[in-house]
């Protein structure tokens, strides 16, 4: 029998329906696992055990009375600490916001509560979702459950570490330059950056308005679809929210990939930013598996990774400066060194740089859309390297920007990263799938087919 902490949300929902497991039993078991692992992994900034047990008891009564709120009812979830949870601090892992108590739930948290999910608490992040991993902040950085000497990725670090280690089956992260997909990639789980505007960002501390996304982190693709189902929807109070009612993200999970056309962007990891050999080998395996499952995989070319990265940084730094300028002027010493160094470049960007980057962005969006007329899904690397040692600042600085996620923050297309193997030193490596706007279901379909054929989801960190 599977240990309770490794059950997926889908399995938990089935166990609740069969009355072989209850929300209080599960929540208690997860709280014990958190107590055991937190000193090693530091996934939480703030655990709200009491409120979680109260919510579990409520869910138990409702389920016993036959009042199910859906598949997330009674399922525990962790929330990145730039997302508001009413009554709890939203610190953004920073001294700057250390006393900032949220008055209301963020829209995404509100959606989860409506679906009956149990909020466990607030999770470690890179400071303001940009400065990390850092050891000069009010809380320690999260660590990788596959080897706690290594970085769990970021900026949604606690979300990745907690899901991968079995502290909770579901987590929310945010993604401005790859921050959901990075921890998913190096912690061996599934992370989706949905289509821009599909999930409301109301109540989420912004990093860069036109690049920010909220996204689900899970151990399985089916759970990712379930969580997205609860999160997606138009929010008139989020200016970036899309006017769409697209639903049914899990409807094609069992369809396989036979007949699908997949464009493989090889130059990202072969020439633009040559990847670690273990990452390259795993990507070749993904291609072989998808072809064996019946997909047509062909090589495609996009503009160079460095150009997407430059546009991402010009826009991110400019927009973030407009948010952080008052604090950077008055309290520069209250930021950790990494956040300060990554936010200050915005002061030196010109209006022309910003507008020029937005103009070029429109051209790049058109280019990617053109490719997606010929292909159902694009496939490429996510991280170019396995996780660095977290205390090796030089290696982290070298490897952290070596990624192919930022292009899809620039374009806003849905992009999912998931485990594609283990490196020679036993750390996860990954693949990324990218789809058309609002066709997140197709991305999840390809991911589900790969997951089933490759079977990496059965592998858990030795912790």
């Amino acid at each position, binding site marked *: 029998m599977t240990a309770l902490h490794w059950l997926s949300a889908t399995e938990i929902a089935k166990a609740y329906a069969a009355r072989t497991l209850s929300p209080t039993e599960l929540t208690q078991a997860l709280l014990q696992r958190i107590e055991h692992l937190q000193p090693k992994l530091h996934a939480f900034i703030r655990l709200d055990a009491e409120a979680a047990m109260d919510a579990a008891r409520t869910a138990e009564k409702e389920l016993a009375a036959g009042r199910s709120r859906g598949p997330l009812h009674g399922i525990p979830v962790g929330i990145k600490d730039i997302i508001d949870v009413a009554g709890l601090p939203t610190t953004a892992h920073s001294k700057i916001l250390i006393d900032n108590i949220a008055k209301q739930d963020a829209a995404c948290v509100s959606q989860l509560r409506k679906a009956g999910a149990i909020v466990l608490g607030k999770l470690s992040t890179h400071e303001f979702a940009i400065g990390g991993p850092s050891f000069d902040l009010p809380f320690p950085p999260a660590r990788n459950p596959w080897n706690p000497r290594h970085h769990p990725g970021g900026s949604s670090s606690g979300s990745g570490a907690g899901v991968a280690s079995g502290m909770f089956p579901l987590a929310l992260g945010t993604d401005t330059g790859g921050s959901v997909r990075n921890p998913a990639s190096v912690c061996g789980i599934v992370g989706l950056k949905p*289509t*821009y*505007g*599909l999930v409301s960002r109301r109540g989420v501390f912004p990093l860069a308005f*036109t*690049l920010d996304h909220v996204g689900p982190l899970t151990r399985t693709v089916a759970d990712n679809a379930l969580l997205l189902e609860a999160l997606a929807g138009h929010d008139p109070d989020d200016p*970036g929210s*899309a006017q769409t009612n697209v639903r049914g993200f899990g409807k094609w999970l069992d369809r396989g990939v036979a007949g699908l056309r997949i464009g493989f962007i090889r130059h990202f990891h072969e020439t633009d930013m040559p990847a670690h050999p273990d990452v390259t080998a795993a990507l070749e395996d993904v291609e072989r598996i998808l072809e064996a499952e019946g997909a047509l995989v062909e090589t495609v070319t996009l503009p160079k990774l*460095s*150009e997407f*990265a*430059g*546009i991402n*940084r*010009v826009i991110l*730094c400019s927009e973030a400066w407009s948010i952080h*300028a008052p604090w*950077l*002027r*008055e309290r*520069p*010493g209250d930021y950790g*060194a990494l956040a*300060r*160094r990554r936010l*200050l*470049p*915005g*002061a*030196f*960007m*010109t209006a022309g*740089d910003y*507008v*020029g*980057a*937005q*103009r*070029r*962005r*429109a*051209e790049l969006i058109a280019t990617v*859309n053109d490719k*997606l*007329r010929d292909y159902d899904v694009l496939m490429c690397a996510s991280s170019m390297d396995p996780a660095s040692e977290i205390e090796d600042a030089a290696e982290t600085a070298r490897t952290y920007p070596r990624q192919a996620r930022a292009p899809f923050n620039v374009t*806003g*297309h849905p992009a999912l990263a998931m485990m594609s193997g283990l490196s020679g030193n036993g750390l996860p490596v990954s693949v990324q799938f990218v789809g*058309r*706007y*609002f*066709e997140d279901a197709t991305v999840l379909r390809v991911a589900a087919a790969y997951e089933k054929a490759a079977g990496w989801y059965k592998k858990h960190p030795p912790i």
Partner: protein
Amino acid sequence: MDPTIAALAKAAGLDKALAEFPADIEAAAAQALGHAEAVKYPTDPAAEPWPPMRAEPTL
């Protein structure tokens, strides 16, 4: 420090950071230049940036 960078930092109101973290200011200016140089700005005067981000169905 390059006096132009110092002048730009002061113009941005970063006097405190300039005094306390001069190396960060210098590095930030260099990074900003590097990021901006990586972008191939459109040559077509009609290439517009509006809206800055909006996802719409592809097909």
